[in-house]
């Protein structure tokens, strides 16, 4: 065969074959799951962190109870990609860092925080064999935080203040949370702080020690929130209401019994959601049980004003957007009116 003919025949053959393979294996072509129902649903972005646990829990329980879910959860691997996908309009709602949502609002993005993702659920970890036992011992050390817009960074600011120190006493390093355990292990940094389960991982693997949990320094700490595009609230208020109710019910369900948490650790760690070791999620959700909490998630003005003040102080917020600009607490005003899911899981 000539070159032209060979290249044409093989290239066409390959393109057809690989397109078919990709369509069947990854895009669900010919599978029963694809079809109209998936196309109509709106998407919600989340990261595989326990701060976003109510997202997969809502999706899973919805599917168990009704056979379908109300939204498509989309897992991201990092904050920048999640933020960009939200800005591009790819998804109308997402779990996001509270200060990041507030900063976006300041920059004119029509985003509204409608509910909290969790309370507490972060920690500062040091190496087990280090001589760091108090905040003061971190003087001159390197501390990793996930993102300049993360509440973990603000948490460090607050802890420094409480210890009579300033940010100049330590070196702050920005690092993706999944890389933090290895960085702590290899002594690339002296302390790490991010959402779970990456902190618990260092503890479970035997080289990390909790310097303090968020509840010790900043009780009822908020890191992530559920944020929705304002257009969605205007045009599909009932859909947002259904979403927030579902998230709120999931939070109450998670905090109802330890059995529920262990059940969630099992199904959330599957490949569809977090794709993590179920033991790790079980560890985070139980040791101690109040390491991360999923109740008391209605929006409270003073919590956000505190974040605003710290954000202003640390230079990530300009102070031009306030609670009424970036928050819409009207979806759940009284959490007591919300009932947990009536679902007991698949008992072993």
């Amino acid at each position, binding site marked *: 065969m000539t070159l032209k003919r060979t290249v044409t025949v093989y290239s066409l053959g390959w393109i057809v074959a690989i397109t078919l393979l990709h369509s069947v294996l990854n895009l669900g072509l010919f599978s029963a799951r694809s079809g109209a129902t998936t196309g109509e649903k709106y998407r919600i972005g989340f990261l595989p962190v326990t701060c976003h646990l109510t997202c997969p829990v809502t999706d899973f329980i919805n599917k168990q109870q009704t056979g379908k879910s109300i939204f498509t959860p989309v897992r991201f*691997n990092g904050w*920048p*990609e*999640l933020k960009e996908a939200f800005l591009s309009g790819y998804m109308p709602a997402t779990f996001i860092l509270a200060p990041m949502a507030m900063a976006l609002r300041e920059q004119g993005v029509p985003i509204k925080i409608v509910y909290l993702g969790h309370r507490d659920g972060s920690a500062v970890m040091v190496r087990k064999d280090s001589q760091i036992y108090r905040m003061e011992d971190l003087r001159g050390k390197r501390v990793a935080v996930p993102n300049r817009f993360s509440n973990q960074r603000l948490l460090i600011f607050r802890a420094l203040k409480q210890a009579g120190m300033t940010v100049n006493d330590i070196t702050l390093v920005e690092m993706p949370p*999944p890389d933090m355990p290895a960085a702590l292990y290899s002594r690339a940094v002296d302390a790490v702080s991010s959402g779970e389960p990456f902190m618990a991982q260092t503890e479970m693997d035997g080289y990390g020690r909790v310097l303090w949990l968020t509840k010790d320094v900043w009780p009822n700490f908020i890191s992530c929130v559920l944020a929705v595009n304002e257009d969605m609230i205007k045009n599909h208020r009932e859909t947002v209401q259904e979403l927030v109710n579902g998230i709120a019910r999931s939070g109450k369900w998670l905090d109802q019994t330890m059995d529920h948490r262990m059940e969630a650790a099992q199904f959330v760690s599957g*490949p569809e959601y977090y*794709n993590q070791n179920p033991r790790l999620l079980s560890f985070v959700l139980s040791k101690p049980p109040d390491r991360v909490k999923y109740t008391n998630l209605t929006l409270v003005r003073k919590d956000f004003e505190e974040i605003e003040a710290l954000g202003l102080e640390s230079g990530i917020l300009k102070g031009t957007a306030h609670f009424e600009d970036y928050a819409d607490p009207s979806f759940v005003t009284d959490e007591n009116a919300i009932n947990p899911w009536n679902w007991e899981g698949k008992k072993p």
Partner: protein
Amino acid sequence: MELGGEKTVNGKSRIVLPLCVGVAVLLVWHIAVRISHSYLTPTPLEVLRGIAELIQKGLLFKYMAASLFRVTCGFMLAVVIGVPAGLLLGWFQLAFQAFNPMLQILRPISPIAWIPLAISWFGISDAAPIFLIFLASVFPIAVSAIAAVQNMQPVYLRAARNFGLSGGELFRQVIFRASLPQIITGIRIALGVAWLVVVAAEMIAVNSGLGYLIIDARNAGKRYDLIVAGMVMIGLIGLVLDLIVRQLEKFDEVRWGYASRE
């Protein structure tokens, strides 16, 4: 042994020698991990078990298909646009003067830098990584085609004109054919680059692919075996792709360009 010792290479040593190097690398890797008592770096055996786990879960072939699909689309698009554009820019001096500075400005920008824009333009779909792979591979192809035309020996042109060829005929029969060996080299380099950026391209929240496997394994806790398994698979597929493209050099239409080594 003679200089440029291809003549001493027979069929057997072509397989045995690389295998020996491969085994030696695996041994050094294994021993290095053991001696350093590294807690995070996996041994070759652990990586093999990681690959077995991926096969067992049916993920490996899924991810391979996804990555190969994206690279195929991005790369083919780069060939279809890059080769004609390169030939034209190489031939028309005025067009070259106009477009070359822009080409040189765009060329050094890493595909990673384009990720935010790719997401905002294409959302989270296959189109975004395909666009990044296209960007990474179109420039080596276009530049090699430009250089091929510009460096073509004038004797071909004189001969062609003596035979009365001009216009489209001259372009197809002479310029394209004379440039082909160099274009194929550019394509080979571009395919390597396209495959190289697959990890970065799949950092966008697509949910399949070998690049995604690596990024996902970072999220999954201490799964460095899967990270290295992804790296190994990318390397092995890269080797196969290069071997395939090298087959093109066996055709007479290309082979004459490499004649000096025969």
